């Protein structure tokens, strides 16, 4: 039996791993900003946040 088994599926190169990590961090930051934005506006508007004139 071989000491090392060949990995199944696709193996990412270092460049691919690096760019995927960059993209993941950017998505996390964007989601963080969105959450904070909703929190901040809710704090600013108070109960008026529920008033939604068209």
């Amino acid at each position, binding site marked *: 039996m071989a000491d090392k088994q060949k990995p199944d599926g*696709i193996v*990412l*190169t270092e*460049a*691919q791993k*690096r*760019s*995927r990590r*960059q*993209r993941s961090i*950017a998505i996390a930051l964007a989601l963080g900003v*969105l959450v904070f*934005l*909703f929190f*901040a*506006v809710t704090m*600013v508007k108070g109960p008026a946040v529920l008033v*939604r*004139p*068209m």
Partner: protein
Amino acid sequence: MSVVDQNAIELAPRISEADVADYIALLKPRVMSLVIFTALVGLMIAPVHVHPVLAFTSILCIAVGAGASGALNMWYESDIDALMSRTANRPIPRGRVTRPEALAFGMTLAFFAVMTLGILVNWFAGALLAFTIFFYVVVYTMGLKRWTAQNIVIGGAAGALPPVVAWAAATGSLSIEPVLLFLIIFFWTPPHFWALALFRSDDYARAGIPMLPVVAGPDATRLQILLYTLVLVTVAVAPWPLGYFDAVYGVTSLVLGAGMLTLAINVYRRREGSEALRATRKLFAFSILYLFALFATLGLEVVVHALAPSIW
């Protein structure tokens, strides 16, 4: 017989190496910066107090909406982008981002920008932002751009809407002032882009885009530039005598308008060789300064008035 299984190659999933910079490039950052600036002025001149958090949210949503439009534009135009030297380095022609990735990115951003503006600020502004994105992507990019030489005249409406959206975000309604800002950008767009098209007409011809210099020739374009500049200068000065913007704006608009008109006349008169090219490039560069300075004046007036009300 090949030892390589062609089916396996074709079925192998493509692993993206696109980094964040490629996705930022899809947003057209330079266009986005102009959108942010004009929207900020639209927000500043609104006659209501807007909480800074809501102001930031509005500008962010408008900016992201503009970025989404840029990404969707690049998704649709990747075939012609590859043919033009100005756009060949964009992420899709370079192979950094695929078309489906750009489409998904643009649609996601557009959805979040419109929904966030609607939910957090007001739905009138959200609907206007949705209309702006629709107009730029569907009406201009998919419809007008490859169909008519008037593409940037009508399509310019999309670029003129951000200050209107910002005003709507601040007030929840519309008024004459944002319409005036809209008209200024609307009539600024043809001279600006036709000046660019004059010295990039080979690019546009190669890509088969019916820009005015390609379809009607450079001389007809020069005349149109001059006529639109006359309308632009008039429209930009008019808010002063009509009483919507004050004398500081009026004088600035007159001085800048004289500069713009002089350069447009130069473009009309100088039709051959390097002098013609120089005149066109000067008009293109000055037109950016013109719009920036007009809007900056309006913004600065608001700042000065807020800091030292006695001056005005």
